């Protein structure tokens, strides 16, 4: 099977997956009945007429299947409906909150990637040494520390005890740091990004170190060394490239895990991102926002998996396409 066919098949599967998630979620949300009724019931002065007209305003009349297809049709031109709590277009909210999520998640994974390469190379080239043992133990500990617990510890140390970093939010409400919106924003990013970097580095190092150790043992490394290449080029040019293949697949999984647990990360730091938006939406039964957020998170997750799958095939032609 050719690469193009493989990619086409993955694309179709991904589309089916996103559709499947949307059907399940839509059905579940509708299983509880009309959210307007639940939200407005037992409030003084609410008559059946009002509930009916509000439901109609939000397009909640009609059968479930009809509404699903209307919703799906609207999504195709990026109309996610209107939030029933904030009365704002959901698409605008998704963009605003999504930016904040990516603002901490992308640096969180990129910095971790760079750090883990560095640490793994140091450890793997000194296999069985004390440094190596320390790296393995540290990575195992860091990997087992729940990410939100790392966040809590960071807040305790850097915000409460040392008092040098802000513990919540994405910007200061009163005076900005150095009167610059940009520096103030960066300053608020330090702890959340720090937490993500800590967790991601530990997990990636565990994987990359053992992969690198395995590769350094192979014959082509011996050949490269024998041909007189400097050790630095052997490690970074030849070994690292091959050691990276298993890490690459895991990168998609890790990014998915990070996006999936964004509600926790953003609750710890009161960060105004998609995860926090999702939590409030579930609590308030703001169903267009629930649907929209889940769709965006699923889309990013599936996209990440798809990209790594494709990159995998392109980087390593030995892999049999199945």
């Amino acid at each position, binding site marked *: 099977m050719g690469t193009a066919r493989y990619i086409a098949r993955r694309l179709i*599967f991904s589309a089916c*997956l996103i559709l*499947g*998630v949307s059907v*399940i*979620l839509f059905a*579940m*949300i509708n*299983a*509880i009945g009309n959210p307007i009724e*639940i939200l407005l019931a037992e409030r003084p002065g609410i008559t059946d007429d009002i509930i009916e007209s509000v439901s109609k305003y939000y397009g909640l009349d009609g059968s479930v299947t009809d509404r699903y297809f209307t919703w799906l049709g609207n999504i195709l031109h990026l109309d996610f409906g209107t939030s029933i709590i904030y009365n704002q277009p959901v698409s605008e909210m998704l963009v605003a909150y999504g930016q904040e999520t990516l603002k901490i998640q992308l640096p969180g994974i990129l910095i971790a990637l760079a750090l883990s390469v560095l640490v793994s190379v140091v450890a793997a080239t000194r296999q069985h040494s004390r440094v190596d043992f320390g790296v393995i133990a540290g990575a*195992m*500990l860091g*990997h*087992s*520390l*729940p990410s*939100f*617990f790392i966040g*809590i*510890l960071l*807040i*305790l140390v850097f915000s*409460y005890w040392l008092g040098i970093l802000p513990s919540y939010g994405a910007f200061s409400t009163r005076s900005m740091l150095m009167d610059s919106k940009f520096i103030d924003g960066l300053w608020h990013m330090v702890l959340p990004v720090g937490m993500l970097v800590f967790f991601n580095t530990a997990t990636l190092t565990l994987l990359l170190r*053992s992969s690198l*150790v*395995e590769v350094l043992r192979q014959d082509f490394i011996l050949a490269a060394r024998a041909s007189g290449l400097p050790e630095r080029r052997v490690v970074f040019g030849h070994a690292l490239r091959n050691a990276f293949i298993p890490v690459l697949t895991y990168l998609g999984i890790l990014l*998915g895990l990070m*996006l*999936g*647990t964004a*509600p*926790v990360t953003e*609750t*710890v730091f009161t960060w105004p991102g998609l995860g926090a938006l*999702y*939590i409030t939406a*579930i*609590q308030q*039964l703001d169903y267009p926002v*629930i649907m929209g*957020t*889940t769709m965006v*998170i*699923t889309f990013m*997750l*599936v996209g990440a*998996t798809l990209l790594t799958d494709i990159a995998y095939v392109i980087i390593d032609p030995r892999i049999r396409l199945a």
Partner: protein
Amino acid sequence: MLRRRPGMWRQGWYRFRRNRGGMLGLFLVALVVLVAVLSPFVAPFEPSDQSAMLRGASRRAPDWIHLLGTDRNGYDVLTRMLYGASTALAVGLGAMAIASVIGVIVGGIAGYAGGLTDELLMRFAEFFMVIPVFVVILAVVRLFGIVVVGTWLESVPHLNLMTIIVLLGCFEWPPIARMARAEFLRLRHAEFVEAAVCIGSTKRSILLRHILPNALPSLIVLVALGIGGAILAETMVSFLGFGDPRAVSWGQSLYFNYEALKVAPWAVLSPGAAIFVTVLGFNLLADGLTDAFNPRLRR
């Protein structure tokens, strides 16, 4: 008398015993189990005892009466931490029991039957692997809580916690199914299985008595990892406020006390440390088991 060679499990144990990380993991897991069993006897207070609040002694720093202090609800932090162990184990074991049954059945059928059945089942498993599990679980827990209002289900004790356990089980089976499939594929044509076919064993006995026991070591590693993962997931669900308000769980303690982190850090640090120790224990145990049962993969 004939002396039997040590079996698969005994050989595995010999190798496991030499693995320091794995032994540490086993020790930590044993500690958590011991705490879960003994908590009613060793805990200094009742888990529902809020009397400290009436004395105005909530959020009190650790002292000789309350060894780890009290939290903002007036609970004794140490007591709640000890009792949390049994909840955590119930979540981990319950979720993985469900996941193992589903996973072994799906993976076993896929691996043994092969062909189109295999293809369909594995696509189905893949669907569950890419779904944002945690996000979906949050929504289901919240919505299910509304659906049950006014039905007989409402009277079931710890319904919320059981929902979370069942959901975790229903979402965590794909890795087990994939491993079970690979093992069943590998063993389907093993010599001892062919021999069993030759002597006319029934399909049932081949699958359950010959293939499954030999597939277990690989599966147990995944189950150990999964228990830690399920405990962590329940903690996060509870931390976000979607947990069982009546259960004594570490996540619940985190949820109730996180707002008071600055004034009473001990009430957050203790359950957090308990989760860390438990998850670390299961991770190390899984690592040790991998080394013990798949010595070819040893580094």
